[in-house]
């Protein structure tokens, strides 16, 4: 790698990079929640390029058609947080660098299928496992993901008793007593 880009990397490492994007699905449920269509996720330990590669790697591991990059960015955010520890930073930056080095310096420039094959071949490495195990929590544990996948999260706190716990209409209603009784309802 030429020394100019090396020093650029060092520069970004100390100042941190950022992930920026625009929501792809203007009328999707997430867009309805978001204050604006463009989003940005500042990074502290990783460079913008490293963040972009890690976002793309996560998308290959957990492909959800129609899931906004803004949700995948939560994974990068948590990897960035982990990368504040030296060992994790070395692991993540090393993983990104190895992907780039193997792809004439720019893994992101490869065709998606080629990217996928190279990521898949890393299964079992600690880099792969770090991204996978972070993503399995971060990707599915945020309000945007809840909206996307149709989980109501904290809304349940007040209870679904009068709000959809048995609103399924595509099957016949089971009979009582098997189906139980609402509070206050007296079994006849």
């Amino acid at each position, binding site marked *: 790698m030429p020394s100019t880009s090396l020093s650029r990397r060092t520069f970004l490492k100390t100042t941190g990079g950022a992930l920026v994007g625009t929501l792809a699905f203007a009328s999707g449920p997430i867009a309805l929640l978001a204050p604006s269509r463009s989003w940005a996720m500042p990074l502290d330990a990783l460079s913008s390029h490293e963040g972009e590669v890690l976002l793309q790697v996560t998308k290959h591991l957990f492909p*959800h058609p129609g899931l906004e990059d803004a949700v995948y960015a939560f994974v990068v955010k948590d990897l960035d947080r982990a990368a504040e520890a030296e060992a994790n930073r070395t692991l993540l930056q090393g993983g990104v660098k190895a992907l780039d080095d193997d792809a004439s310096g720019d893994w992101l420039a490869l065709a998606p299928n080629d990217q996928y094959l190279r990521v898949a071949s890393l299964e079992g490495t600690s880099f792969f496992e770090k991204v*996978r195990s972070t993503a399995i929590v971060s990707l*599915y*544990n945020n309000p945007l993901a809840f909206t996307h996948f149709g989980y109501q999260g904290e809304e*349940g706190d007040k209870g*679904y*008793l009068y709000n959809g716990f048995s*609103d399924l209409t595509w099957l016949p*209603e089971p009979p009582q007593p098997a189906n139980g009784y609402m509070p206050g309802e007296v079994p006849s």
Partner: protein
Amino acid sequence: MAMTDNQTRFQHDDDHVAVIIGSGAGGGTLANELAQQGIDVVVLEAGAIHTRDDFLADEWASFSQLAWLDPRTTSGSFRLAKDFPNLPAWIVKSVGGTTVHWAGASLRIQPHEFRALSEYGKVEGANLLDWPVTYDELAPYYTRAEDRMGVTRTNDIPGLPGNNNFHVMYTGAKNLGYECNTGHMAINSQIRDGRASCQQRGFCFQGCRTGAKWSTLYTELPAAIATGHMELRPQSHVAHIEHDAQGKVTGVVYFDANGDQQRQKARLVAVAGNSLETPRLLLNSASSLFPDGLANSSGQVGRNYMRHTTGSVYATFDEPVHMYRGTTMAGIISDEAHHDPSRGFVGGYEMETVSLGLPFMAAFFDPGAWGSDFTGALDQYDHMAGMWLVGEDMPRESNRITLNTDLKDAFGMPVANVHYDDHPNDIAMREHAYRQGSAIYESVGAKNIYRTPPYPSTHNLGSCRMSQRAQDGVCNGFGQSHDIPNLFISDGSQFTTSATENPTLTIVSLAIRQAEHIGQLMKEGIV
């Protein structure tokens, strides 16, 4: 105001108190039952007090708040050793123990299951035994426990209303000729015993904020405190139990909230730390008189650990289900719970609805997974129904809790290692259960059907089992240890066999019966 603010306090050198270790299903119930008799009790609980107001409607945050996260290790061929090597069990470390997390399913063990060895015959590679208690002996205590816990469909308490996940299970069950209803649940379907009725929140595994679900946290423990005969000491982690030259236990050494070592004297000690910590504590209490640990002359302490044969089936449909709305365990099928060896295994299993929120679904659906099969399932999350399979697993001497002396906890004590190999009977049963569970959903028109491997064990049993003869187990039919008359086992570790049913109702019934027995022994001057 904390529940402990105005409680009676006992001196550390007061040797007339009964010390109970753990405040969950076993310990919390025993404490109340003793206190109601006027017996002075000190409960030492490793976890802190988290009240209903503290509970979180957020799976991971709640897990960090309540779960037992002190280190444990695993070995053996069971899949958990690979998936969650340091989390073999899902247990709570908090006042109220795992009754804070539990789903509330409250089923009686069937009469024949108390006679597992006689009914099933010898099973190669298993250490089956009959319980020293019969169903008929326990029946009156089951009745009292059901009333105490407010179990639906007993004591004229109506069944809970069925949620969407139940509706799917019910339809499939009927298609296969099974019976199915909303179960026997220790969850109020109506206001009862000063507690609200269930609001169908769907966060039963995260602590019930309404108090509709029975937990010792807000039933047995405050009731015991109110008698003036019980002191609850949270954040008190017992490290070992002490004894005198005659071999009777005299008290315990524990670490308080500040990490300072304390010693509480006792007339008797009852251990109810759940089936990993109970044997660990006995083993960690080894002395020159008892070099293999307390109550271990049989060598059975820690052995015959059981965790039920489990697995889950999730299925997706064209139409939405939203299974996470409402009680987590909302329906039960018991038609496979009987013993019928023609199915290729002894014992039986239950099918119970289960649901996980999106975060836990991702973590537990297929641990270690990635790629489009996995994401394809999660893409259908709101169109998914689920059930948990839970059946009798075989006690094996080699499935055991031992001390891992290479790893110490915060107080320098060796941690528990959990070794488990599935018995061929467990594997055959799980396969049968997966097939029947899948057939249920297929009959309702499922698009995809998924077999999910066992979660970290929620039912932990048998590691200090009851036995008629001292050489076969650790305690007698009242949970009194064979070796030491004033040392009792008061939790699920006592189970001689796992039986099919979710264990808590039986743990509570045994605790009520044990309390009566202890009261008698005290009157007779034996303890």
